[in-house]
């Protein structure tokens, strides 16, 4: 079948706020998906000139190379503190951090909680894949009970390593945050919901309302030792049981 392209309209294209550089993520990694959703949101809101990325340490460390926006790479865990500084110096900028579970929920716990508690007018994108992806798949604070990692080959044991931390719930019990939500990306409906959540979080900041956090349950097919399609099922059937989806705070 030949398709006459004259009759066709483009309904999905690469976001304008991304460069042509290829992502360095593994095949099937949801990181690329979140990056694309953020870029489309920046395009839709027309904030490319004002957006500032605060990248963290992890697989997304070179994120500033993919966006046609200003960006900075914060010291490990300190993205929320760096974002606070940028936003307070120039409140016209739209500042967001992009942090994994190791960065936000382990080494950066103090900065992450206090930025939220002060109600800084920033947007935090929290990528929760329950593992330390870049360093070789060690256990993260968010690793599920029984989930295997290279530093807990028999699965996470609560007596030895405690329980997975529900960071969105920790942030949600503070008074200052305006919008706290948890999303996933395992099917099309969830991808659309996550896109809406990210857009809403950015809108909260544009409107000057205050701190917003979007936690996104993602996969790590390489370190979970699964195919990308299997990892989607794992998120849907296992991870969501420990990390329930939905809005936790919505004062927007």
């Amino acid at each position, binding site marked *: *079948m030949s*398709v006459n*392209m004259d*009759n*066709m*309209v*483009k*309904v*999905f*294209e*690469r*976001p304008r706020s*991304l460069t042509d550089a*290829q*992502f360095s*993520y*593994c*095949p*099937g*990694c*949801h*990181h*690329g*998906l979140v990056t*694309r959703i953020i870029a489309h949101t920046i395009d839709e809101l027309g904030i490319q000139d004002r957006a500032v990325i605060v990248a963290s340490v992890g697989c997304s460390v070179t994120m500033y190379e993919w966006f046609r926006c200003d960006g900075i790479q914060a010291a490990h865990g300190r993205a929320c503190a760096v974002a606070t500084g940028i936003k307070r110096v120039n409140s016209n900028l739209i500042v967001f951090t992009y942090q994994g579970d190791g960065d936000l929920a382990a080494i950066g716990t103090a900065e992450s909680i206090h930025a939220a508690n002060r109600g800084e007018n920033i947007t935090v994108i929290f990528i929760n894949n329950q593992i330390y992806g870049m360093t070789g798949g060690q256990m993260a604070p968010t690793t599920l009970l029984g989930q295997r990692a290279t530093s807990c080959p028999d699965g996470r044991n609560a007596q030895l390593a405690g329980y997975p931390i529900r960071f969105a719930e920790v942030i949600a019990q503070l008074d200052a945050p305006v919008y706290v939500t948890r999303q996933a*990306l395992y*099917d*099309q409906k969830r*991808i*659309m919901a996550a896109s809406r959540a990210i857009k809403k979080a950015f809108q909260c900041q544009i409107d000057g309302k205050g701190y917003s956090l979007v936690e996104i349950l993602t996969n790590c*097919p390489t370190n979970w030792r699964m*195919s*990308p*399609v299997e990892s*989607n099922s794992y998120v849907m059937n296992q991870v969501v049981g420990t990390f329930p989806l939905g809005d936790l705070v919505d004062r927007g």
Partner: protein
Amino acid sequence: MPKGTVVIDRERCKGCGLCLALCPEDVLAYSADYNQSGYNVVYMERPERCIGCAFCAQTCPDIAIEVYREKKSQQRE
């Protein structure tokens, strides 16, 4: 049903297969080809079934897929 088509950037595709799993019309499949990075790339095996829903593109982590849909005025003819 609106007709659609997709354009897959062979060199961006990493052959993860997420698009195959989400395509509601079973349009896509692995080709016999490998790109320069050594990934088995996806192609349109049954292009006549594509409805241009863009589910494949929305789930593609490497933005390797562009989606086109027939103009609305064309559908009525």
